């Protein structure tokens, strides 16, 4: 096709994402970002310069062919666009919503040098949502190979690995500890950011490919990885058990009533739907003033959830400054718009409680930024004598998660890091144990949805090679 010679007119700004009004949405659990309509998505796609060197694509961990699918959208070939996306990305409705685009694809967009990047994630989301609404055309499934693969954990890593292997004709069973599949997408990321119906639609598609999903199945308990291989006849195993073990601060008072890990706070709310209590049975209790410790996506989700559960004040308490917040930019902006408050350069040293054991306050110390540390970020240093009491009655600890030890502990010959993560070859997902592969947060530590998916896909490729060479 002949390239256009004339220089394309640049439209500097992204088409705004329609969203619920901040003050209204801060009190409900409906999705915040409403999604582009057809006219807007085409207009947004037309902003793309179709750069020949495809810089945006290098920013995408799974290398979605961004210019190609955007071109199809600009031409209103939405069916073609979603097909193109799905060549590389198995869960576009999820990624379009939760990828940290500003650090990935959109960061490298040519337009971003001077103007606003093309809204790649938003376009991706539109295509995926449209397909989900229309009903997904299933990809072709290769004839059965007679090989059995077990996938442990149904987060994005496990779902992607299962989907790729099923398409290659393998007999795949996913074992999931909880009563629903989806991992963090179901229990962690809130409904208002990622509707659970979207996740379940993706899970349904997976089942249509012939993947069996066994919920209520904790590997390491009802069976072990070794037993799956030796007694159940699995030819290979993929471990994608995530980083679900919550870290605490290890400060006095942390077991007081009113202190939650972010996982508990979000699981009660999202997975168990405590926001619909008492129609749903699981309770949650929050006070008037909530402090969320940490600065990542998990912390933002905690703080925004607290508002929706009725908190009068919701604070992010973070050791560093605004600049260092590791959360997605859009989440920080949304949190600010909704009225979440920020205490930067602050860290708790003790949680205070009354006689019944309920939180009455939090003793904090102020920090200042010192020399850059190994990560290149300026290291926060405590200011002596700066302790003060923050008036809060609920505390949510969102300072990170480690790998759940149930599978590593019960699997023979699996090499682990000092933090308990599984050691796997980043090129293949192979672990130290033959036939056992791993990927996602259980290998990398808490990371992102798209990286977990990428790892699931990589492992699927090498599992396929392993099975067909045997």
């Amino acid at each position, binding site marked *: 096709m002949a390239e256009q010679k004339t220089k394309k007119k640049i439209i500097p700004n992204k088409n705004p994402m329609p969203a619920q009004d901040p003050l209204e949405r801060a009190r409900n659990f409906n999705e915040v970002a409403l999604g582009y309509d057809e006219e807007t998505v085409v207009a947004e796609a037309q902003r793309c310069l179709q750069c020949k060197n495809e810089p945006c694509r290098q920013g995408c961990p799974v290398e979605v062919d961004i210019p190609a699918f955007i071109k199809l959208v600009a031409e209103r070939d939405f069916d073609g666009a979603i097909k193109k996306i799905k060549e590389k990305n198995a869960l576009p409705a999820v990624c379009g919503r939760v990828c940290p685009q500003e650090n990935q694809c959109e960061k490298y967009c040519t337009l971003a040098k001077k103007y606003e990047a093309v809204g790649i994630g938003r376009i991706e989301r539109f295509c995926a949502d449209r397909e989900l609404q229309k009903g997904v055309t299933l990809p072709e499934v290769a004839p059965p190979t007679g090989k059995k693969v077990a996938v442990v954990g149904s987060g994005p890593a496990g779902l992607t690995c299962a989907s790729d292997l099923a398409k290659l004709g393998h007999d795949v069973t996913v074992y999931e*500890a*909880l*009563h629903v599949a989806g991992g963090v997408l179901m*229990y962690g990321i809130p409904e208002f950011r990622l509707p659970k119906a979207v996740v379940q639609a993706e899970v349904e598609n997976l*089942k249509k490919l012939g993947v069996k999903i*066994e*919920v*209520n*199945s*904790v590997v390491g*308990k*009802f*069976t072990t990885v070794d037993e799956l291989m030796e007694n159940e006849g699995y030819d290979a195993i993929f471990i994608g058990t995530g980083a*679900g*073990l*919550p870290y*605490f601060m*290890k400060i006095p008072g*942390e*077991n007081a*009533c009113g202190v*939650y*890990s972010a*996982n*508990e706070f979000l*699981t*009660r709310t999202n997975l*168990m*739907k405590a926001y*619909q*209590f*008492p*129609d*749903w*049975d*699981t*309770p*949650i*209790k929050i006070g008037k003033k909530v402090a969320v410790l940490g600065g990542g996506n998990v912390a933002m989700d905690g703080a925004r959830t607290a508002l929706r559960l009725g908190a009068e004040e919701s604070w992010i308490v973070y050791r560093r400054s605004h600049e260092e917040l590791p959360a997605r930019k859009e989440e920080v902006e949304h949190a600010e718009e909704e009225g979440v408050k920020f205490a930067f350069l602050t860290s708790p040293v003790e949680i205070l409680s009354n006689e*019944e*054991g309920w939180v009455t306050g939090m003793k904090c110390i102020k920090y200042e930024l010192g020399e850059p540390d190994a990560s290149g970020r300026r290291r926060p240093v405590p200011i002596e004598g700066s302790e003060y009491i923050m008036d809060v009655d609920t505390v949510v600890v969102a300072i990170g998660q480690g790998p*759940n*030890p*149930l599978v590593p502990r019960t699997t023979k010959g699996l090499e682990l890091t000092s933090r308990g993560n599984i050691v796997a070859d980043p090129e293949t997902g192979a672990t130290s144990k033959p036939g056992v592969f791993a990927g996602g947060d259980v290998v990398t530590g808490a990371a992102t949805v798209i990286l977990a998916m990428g790892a699931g896909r990589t492992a699927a490729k090498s599992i396929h090679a392993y099975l067909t060479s045997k």
Partner: protein
Amino acid sequence: MKKNEGGEWRDVFKILEKQVFSPIIKLFVIDAPKVAKSCQAGQFIILRIHEEGERIPLTIADFDREKGTVTIVFQEVGKTTKQLGAMEAGDYIKDFVGPLGEPTHIENVGNVVCVGGGVGVAPVHPIARAFKEAGNHVIGIMGARNKELMFWEDHMRAACSELLVTTDDGSYVRKGFVTDVLKEVIESKGKENIPLVIAIGPQPMMRAVCNMTKEYGIKTIVSLNALMVDGTGMCGCCRVSVGNETKFVCVDGPDFDGHQVDWAELSRRQVYFKAEEQKALEHHECKCGCGGGK
């Protein structure tokens, strides 16, 4: 067993048998082959009755590996256990996951006293049996508030080498708390002859047993019932302080050295959701026809 639920085949958990021990204590035998295959004494399950239900932990009171069944015994104390109690043989429980927690550490130590208070008789039963099978002389002590709440005396007699029974009000066998009986046993056998006590029951009972055995210097293992959500170590809701370290009851326990447990903290956390639980019960009784309020 797998059942078609909205076009999807998934495991469902049929209640094969129901026994009513008292108006508030009931036993179910559940079809749960996956759990039955690998469970051991001291482990528990988590169940969810229906889609809107909460996840509650219950100890495995018995199991039959061949039939693929698991037995649970529960006391109706709130919304979910009342709703469970209203179910009948033939009904299905939506979710049933296990075995969870670490099995009780079983070894041959000579004499072991297994104390079960109230509904705690059910969880202590497979533990007593396992200790006896490991060659121990097992002295069982079971107690209840009154005769009506007493169950499984026959099971316990079979599981233990000798069994002592008591009721708080004296309506059956004798009057006294399990701690009274335990004290008599220790005094008569000599504390040096009793290396291990296992105590399962309501928290005040376990605490009282521990206070007493601490004085005698007898190692005592208790099974803690902290609040739980997932039961896999993911939420931290079940944390307790044991020997000044924070532990997760669902994965590190439920068994712990009772002399190391911070009981005061545990009992404060136990009533975390008291107000909500009350509300849930009221909501339940006004809406549902299962007669939960009886």
